[in-house]
């Protein structure tokens, strides 16, 4: 195995992804990621020099909307699925220390 994923890396990625892994899950995640990255490294066998990265397959561009109000007040529907709300707003733990 060429890739070595450290505890710090797993913790760091956990912060980015907002996932909290148990000690056991972390060990497994390290191994999984190492295996996958080794496998992904096979892409390095390919010479991609000068190849433009392709994010869209088709050359479709300039898809626009006109600046016209089409939506009305949907407040109740929008809030209907909220795990926690206070009156007309979503409630979350406080953001400012």
């Amino acid at each position, binding site marked *: 195995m060429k890739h070595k994923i450290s505890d710090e*890396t*797993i913790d*760091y*990625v*956990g912060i*980015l*992804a*907002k*996932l*909290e*892994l148990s000690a056991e*899950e972390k060990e497994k*995640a390290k191994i*999984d*990621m190492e*295996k*996958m990255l080794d*496998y*992904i490294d*096979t*892409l*390095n*066998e*390919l010479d*991609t020099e000068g*190849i*433009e*990265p*392709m*994010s*869209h*397959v*088709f050359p*479709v561009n300039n*898809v626009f*909307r006109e600046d016209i109000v089409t939506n009305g007040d*949907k407040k109740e*529907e*929008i809030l*209907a*699925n*909220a*795990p*926690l709300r206070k009156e007309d707003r*979503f409630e*979350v*733990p*406080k*953001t400012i220390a």
Partner: protein
Amino acid sequence: MDILSFTALELGKMIKEKRASVLDAVKAVIERAKAVEQEINSYVTLDEEGALKQAEEVQRLIDSGTLTGPLAGVPVAVKDNLCIEGQLTTCSSKILSGFKPIYTAEAVLNLKKAGAVIIGKTNMDEFAMGSTTETSYYGPTKNPHNTAHVPGGSSGGSCAAVAAQECYYSLGSDTGGSIRQPSAFCGVVGLKPTYGTVSRYGLIAYGSSLDQIGPVAKDVSDCAAILEAIASHDTKDSTSVKRKDYDFTSALTDNVKGLKIGIPRDYLGEGLDEDIRRAIRKAAEVLEERGAVVEEFDLSLVQYAIPAYYVIASAEASSNLERFDGVKYGYRTPDYEGLHNMYKKTRSEGFGAEVKRRIMLGSFVLSSGYYDAYYLKALRTKALIKQAFDRAFEKYDVILGPAAPSTAPELGKSLTDPMKMYLGDIYTVAVNLAGLPGMSVPAGKDSKGLPIGMQLIGNSFQEKTLIRTAYTYECATNKQYVVPANIGEGV
């Protein structure tokens, strides 16, 4: 004849001719589902009450001459990653517990316009990540042809429901093979359209640049008719394409004379089950007998499609799934201290192992210092893969190969080694990377009696060529749709 044994189009015709009622059909599939669900588990939600209500309404519209389409009144099941207003939509994940969308996906609206009666939401791999439908929070779906085996995935519920006659047809979604592979495993016809053909508005995203919704059907004619109903140019989806043709059923002709079919040698090599190799060669012979020109060729780059796919799909998924955070909808952990702890606990408890694995990988490959080496490299590989297909389609009208290297594996054998599971996507993921249409058509069974699927791949926007080829094959071999024996009888 049992009403359940009709195809969607046959049933539609009977309803139109008043030889059957919508209510008869709806009651029949619901009865059937109730009888077999304990064994198969195709559905996350079976909406009996809603279906009966829709049946009445649709019948009225048919009687008044408002609904005249070929699918009017036919009961359908929809994969649980498609939003339907007011109806539980979970992506088979705990994190979407109790989530009821406030709007309906465009593809489902198109179905409703065609007079479909939606009877429920089908089980899937959580967020469409998996190849077996075992990663579902709602338990695995089982293969109707042998319940000790998986139905494939991620649209396993949609394919099993059609195979087990729990609906007449269904919608699935395909990001790396999620319609074609389970269709092959379940012995049904599945089609992934060209990227942009069916609106993604209302499809809960996995890999946005790869996802497409498509039909799962009992035969090729149904498949063409369903595609015709759901395909549309949608201004709500910026990647939706305005096509020249939407008349897919016009391609249902029994004729492949002069059609050039290429079989990639790389698709018949090591790792492929011998039974499948034989079935694919046999299918090629059938088409050759009907006048097609078949030859083998080197597609190249096949081994790079999976790593490129997992980088791109995981990266997009890591971002697409950020919105599941316990704030606006779905699950929130009951105990937390502060905002970030709430996020982390909600997501760690709400997502299953496979989803977390891909989010971690996707977040890593996009993180500072790795973007070029992984993400851009994968996008460059994608460009090369597209070029390889472009070269192939200069010579061939259709590419023919297997849909999967094996038939349906036994339950519980796949998730222990994710790498091995990923390798099962070898024949399907490249099609998504290149945005091409792909179709899986039943092509016999293996020695264990499990269905084999052949895959037809077309150039962009050439669904009709695929439909024509598949239809000709179906005519030549007599319909392959076989009702699995035994299920439901013990209940």
